[in-house]
């Protein structure tokens, strides 16, 4: 049974201890990587030895990084970038308030020029904000600002594209659709 993740979508990355997980059988850290077995079974053996050695050494977070995002559990079992099978927006682009569940929903839309992540906040059943939380496109995400206004006024995913920013528009639209699908 697929469960949707409601509301809580952000996972804070906590500082990690230097000790690696116990379920990895690893050689000694430190200089051990230089002295590892030279006789390896071709490239597979070499890559496995390298991964174990580096994994054993572990890492410590030294800077703030982007947090991973919980997305909607998908119905299809294929391993594909999520982009299909989502509920379509109503044709006229407007919906009654109260249709969405309160919470913060974060999702990604992709385009040829990179991904855009949108954060949609629903309060009292209405979309209160639909900002771009992460901009991974080659071009500035400020291009989609007119669409953000549209989301708020129509209370649904945008239905138009911004001329001259078609790819960003598509990515942002997909991101908002994905986010709203979690809220429905």
């Amino acid at each position, binding site marked *: *049974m*697929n*469960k949707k*993740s409601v509301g809580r979508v952000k*996972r804070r*990355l*906590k500082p*990690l201890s230097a000790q690696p*997980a116990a*379920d*990895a059988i690893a050689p000694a850290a430190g200089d051990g*990587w*230089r002295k590892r077995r030279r006789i390896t079974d*071709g*490239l*597979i053996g*070499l*890559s*496995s030895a*390298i*991964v*174990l*050695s*580096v*994994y054993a*050494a572990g*890492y410590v*977070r030294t*800077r703030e*990084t*982007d*947090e*991973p*995002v*919980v*997305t*909607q*559990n*998908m119905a299809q*079992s*294929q*391993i*594909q*970038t*999520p982009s299909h099978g989502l509920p379509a927006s109503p044709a006229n682009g407007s919906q009654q308030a109260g249709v969405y569940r309160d919470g913060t929903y974060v999702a*990604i839309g*992709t385009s*040829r020029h*990179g*991904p855009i*992540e949108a954060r949609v906040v629903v309060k009292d059943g209405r979309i209160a904000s639909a900002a771009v939380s*992460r901009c*991974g496109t*080659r071009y*500035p995400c400020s291009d989609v600002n007119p669409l953000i206004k549209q989301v708020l006024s129509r209370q649904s995913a945008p239905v138009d594209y911004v001329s001259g920013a078609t790819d960003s528009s598509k990515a942002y639209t997909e991101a908002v659709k994905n986010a709203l699908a979690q809220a429905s």
Partner: protein
Amino acid sequence: MANDRSVFSAVFMDTVITIEVVQAQPYGACDERVNRAFGWFDHVEQRCSRFVESSELSALFRAATGAPVSVSPLLFQLIEFALTVARASGGAFDPTVGQAMVARGYKRNYRTGQETTHRPHTTRETSYRDVVINPEGGTVTLLKPMVLDLGAVAKGFAIDLAAAELGCFSGYAINAGGDVLVRGRNSANAPWRIGIKNPRRPAELIETLVLSDGAVCTSGDYERPRPDGQAGHHIIQPQTGETASDVASVTVVAATAMVADALSTAAFVLGRKRGLQLLESQGVDGLIIASGLELYATSGLSRYRP
């Protein structure tokens, strides 16, 4: 009774990374592991990306040519692996193509939009033989000024490292922009089904593979068009400097993502015949889709077909 599944995604290495985890017991027990898995993508990227000015790799380019530079075990071993694949592929896979890539416009950091400052030398040709490593000292020496591109090995490396965090789940799938690693079973308690895109019709699948454990990586001419708008793509023939063109995509199935990632690029450059030979000789399986969409498979690929 289906198992519970959760799907997470984040952006690293200029691509969307998705991790799906499956387990029977309540999720909370393994919560932190997914975060740590993503952390490996960040860790590898910050050290090994030529687009990150502060990375260890970028610092290597700035060091004096001909001088041994002490590097971290992580970067050392990634370079060592890249050079091993270069030798195994007769130079078809060559991390020193970074220079040619910069000249074609592949030089912008996808997060900041800033261009890298490495200036390509148009008159001095480089090859993987111009990179010398010393395991005893843990040093790397660049015999000529160059730009190393580890993109074809770093993502697979990060995938394998991330996977090492997820052993507590009964099944998981890591999808880094089409490079996939799976273990165990999906939430329907069946082996994972992985589709291979039709290179000319991205919404369609040309083939589906079924496996419980392994990595499936694809190199395609459609993934990253040239930023300067000219015809061509991101996979470059090291010997000619031109983009490889007889093949539309290569998919490799191997036990580790590091190997699948590297060999899919190497086989792409080698072309249909020699590429297939390389895969067979390395004991991995794969599918080469030629530019006319003819399919060429290794002898062992059929065991992954449903």
